């Protein structure tokens, strides 16, 4: 008989259950941030220092705004849980690389203050804060948000003009042929896949986004319902256009499908709800791209679908254990 002799009161009395998973909100958020790193790094490598400036601006804006709001609302500092960083990063990754850094900063501030903190902080917001930030920037800095695209890798070779248009922008302004020409002919799908095309900082590399998404999937942080819904909806909507594959591979579909449509707070909680939510995003994206007023519609599609989430949560409730199955 060894060890400390019992009894040794008092012991800690806490409410049950007395075991808990090791997962934490902060842990999840930092994993998401980590999963975004590959595509972020690629964005910086492809679009050069301007992209880095935009990323730093947006993240600084988001984090600063969160700290400020914590202060004003006399809350505990919530910056450490990584959600503000995540919002800032996601915002930056959806921005054109040549947007001025201060615009990204303002966008980050707006995203956090009016997309999130005004409702009381993490968990209470209805709209994806990053997308609120982006929509706000589209409204406030329309020119920068329309023309701030950069030719991939051009920054390094110091070409005279490095601005260009995105494949979707070209498709909107001219036609499919012009868009195909921009990405280097029908074989351009490979460039689209690895991310050598003009576009938002973090949206270009499908492969690296997928890598990050796989990490999150493997860790059980996200589920595939919403992303599959997005792809399905977009494919359905664009299947008439004859350029469905271009629609699927360009723009921010992949980033949005895996990192925004899966945002816990602003997506439905149940699986069927998430699936419908995703399909809605896909359909709306296709709608806006083909008939709407913007070449890329995913940002607004997410916001509109976010607006539907409370309703979706009401319609798609978890399968409650009912009396069904009991013989009467």
């Amino acid at each position: 008989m060894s060890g400390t002799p019992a009894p040794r009161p008092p012991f800690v009395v806490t409410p049950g259950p007395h075991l808990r998973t090791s997962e934490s909100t902060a842990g999840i958020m930092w994993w998401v941030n980590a999963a975004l790193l590959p595509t972020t790094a690629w964005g910086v490598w492809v679009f050069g220092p301007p992209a880095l400036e935009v990323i730093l601006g947006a993240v600084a804006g988001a984090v600063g705004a969160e700290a400020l709001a914590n202060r004003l609302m006399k809350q505990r500092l919530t910056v450490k849980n990584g959600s503000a960083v995540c919002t800032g990063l996601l915002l930056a990754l959806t921005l054109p690389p040549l947007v001025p850094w201060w615009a990204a900063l303002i966008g980050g501030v707006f995203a956090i203050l009016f997309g999130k903190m005004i409702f009381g902080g993490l968990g209470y917001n209805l709209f994806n804060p990053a997308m609120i930030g982006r929509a706000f920037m589209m409204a406030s800095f329309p020119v920068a948000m329309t023309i701030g695209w950069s030719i991939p890798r051009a920054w390094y070779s110091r070409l005279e003009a490095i601005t260009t248009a995105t494949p979707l922008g070209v498709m909107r302004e001219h036609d499919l042929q012009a868009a195909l020409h921009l990405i280097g002919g029908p074989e351009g799908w490979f460039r689209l896949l690895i991310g050598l095309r003009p576009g938002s900082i973090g949206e270009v590399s499908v492969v690296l986004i997928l890598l990050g998404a796989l990490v999150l999937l493997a860790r059980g942080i996200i589920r595939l319902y919403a992303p599959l819904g997005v792809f399905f909806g977009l494919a359905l909507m664009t299947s008439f256009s004859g350029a469905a594959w271009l629609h699927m591979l360009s723009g921010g579909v992949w980033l949005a499908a895996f990192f925004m449509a899966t945002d816990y707070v602003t997506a439905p909680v149940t699986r069927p709800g998430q699936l419908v939510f995703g399909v809605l995003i896909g359909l709306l994206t296709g709608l806006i791209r083909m008939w709407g007023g913007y070449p890329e519609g995913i940002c607004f599609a997410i916001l509109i679908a976010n607006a539907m989430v409370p309703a979706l949560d009401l319609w798609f409730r978890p399968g409650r254990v009912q009396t069904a199955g009991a013989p009467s």
Partner: protein
Amino acid sequence: MSTVIHPGPAPGARQLILNGIFAENPVFRLALSLCPAVAVTTTVLNGLLLGVAVLFVQVLSSVTVTLAKRLIHPRVRIPVYTVIIAVWVSAIDMSLAAFAPALYAQVGLYVKLIVAFAIIISRLEVFASRQPLVPTFFDGLGMGLGFLLALLMIGAFRELLGSGSFAGIPLVPGKPLLFFALPAGGFFSIALLMALFNWIERRNQGGRAGPAKSAGGHGV
């Protein structure tokens, strides 16, 4: 209806006017009839025009009602009030169309819609129909001025942020935050100004716990 019905003799003119501007500001405090008013306040001038229109309609209707209150049968007073307001709105509408056509072109629909502003008929009901001419006039003036000031504030805020100008005079080159000139920005401008009003009020109350009155004070 949260509007306070004043018991006893009517207060003085000064107090009535201040009441309309601050304590019962129709936009920020009573949250009534703000409907379309905010829509056109992308600039100070638009706000001014609409505010003046409301001011006139309010004062003229109040005065009409208080003068004609003996003639109005209580059973049909609401329809009669509506008619009175509609008449004055039409009159103001036509006058603006005739004398300020350029500005009117931008806010025309909303001038016509003044007829449906709940605040006007509610002032007729709670004040003009019970008080003599002079206080009614000042009450209408106060309410109208309160509305006008609120519209000017929103207009100034949105014009400054959205277009970087004041009353059409550019102050900064370019457009600082175009967002605030858009419909979405209009909602935000009002939210921010309302929150500011609430915050100031809470500070003035010295921390007395009173959740924003405008919240509960909604007319429905």
